[in-house]
């Protein structure tokens, strides 16, 4: 299974046509795939809170948005999640590279990883953790759930899910 293609197919099947990204090595393939699809307008952001602002605007403009980012961005976006996405009740699927988990080679990434689920739980954000490739089968249902309940929803995808880091 090509995970990058499967994820992008699920986004398109759920009518998600506006995607903003802040890159991560693990996400490079899916970002390339999104960039190549005519059905999706891809707009890179400089920071994740800016990206959530773009998504909020796109949603009010009639498009289904999504953001792709690293888990370190949870530290950047708490205020935006609380006072924009949640306060105004907007749906936002967040496909998150979960750095600092099993098979992580960079120690500093663990420092934010240990806070990630706690912060998401504190924010009452529905959170799913993809650890094995087969977990991606739930993505379609998670996206439907997100636009059913009008909430931000986190999909954490760790290094094991992506197949490790190779030589890094």
């Amino acid at each position, binding site marked *: 299974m090509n995970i990058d293609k499967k994820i992008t197919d699920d986004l398109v099947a759920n009518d998600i046509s506006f995607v903003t990204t802040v890159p991560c090595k693990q996400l490079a393939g899916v970002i390339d795939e999104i960039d190549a699809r005519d059905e999706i307008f891809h707009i890179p952001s*400089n920071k994740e809170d800016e990206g*959530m602002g773009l998504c909020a605007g796109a949603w009010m403009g009639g498009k289904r948005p999504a953001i792709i980012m690293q888990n370190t961005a949870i530290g950047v976006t708490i205020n935006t999640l609380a006072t924009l996405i949640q306060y105004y009740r907007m749906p936002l699927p967040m496909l998150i590279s979960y750095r600092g988990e099993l098979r992580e080679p960079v120690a500093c990434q663990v420092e934010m990883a240990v806070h990630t689920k706690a912060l998401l739980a504190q924010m009452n954000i529905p959170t799913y953790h993809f650890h094995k490739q087969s977990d991606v089968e739930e993505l379609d249902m998670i996206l439907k759930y997100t636009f059913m309940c009008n909430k931000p929803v986190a999909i954490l995808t760790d290094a094991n899910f992506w197949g490790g880091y190779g030589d890094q």
Partner: protein
Amino acid sequence: MIRSEILKEIAPILNPHLVVCNIGLPSQELHMIDDNASNFYMLGTMGLASSIGFGLALAQPKPVIAIDGDGSVLTNLGTLPTIANNSTGNFILMIIDNGSYGSTGDQPTYAGKKTSLTKVAEACGCDRVIECQDVDTGKVLQEALDSGEMTIMVVKCDSGNAKMPVITMDPVVIKDRFMKAVRA
């Protein structure tokens, strides 16, 4: 002129268009001067008026005017390269540049000192950047709407605020009626 005087003067130009308005006093002033369904008031999240307005402009064809402040643009300076590199003709970013953080007690911003947001916007790659004085805001805004080109306005004006009550409208109501205005 101070910001509230400018908003009062340009309210008839803003009225038929989709407006995304910056947090705090700018939204409170616009709400008091001309509350209507096509105004989206930010109740929190300083810095994101430009991003929300730009996402809205990219997603649908109607003109969108984002009313921002110099302090808020400095908070989210990364917005300008994003806007410049994904240009859309239906977007106007109007930066009311009074050189101060109005909602928090008029503390000076760097835009009121050595930093020129006009030059920053140009350096970021924005093609149509117009700096104007407060008295010319309406004329420049109308020209921007007529041009059909994405425009970044930097409106130089005096620091100061009108005394306004906070907006008590529920955020979901603001969003809901705004989305209906977008679809209308």
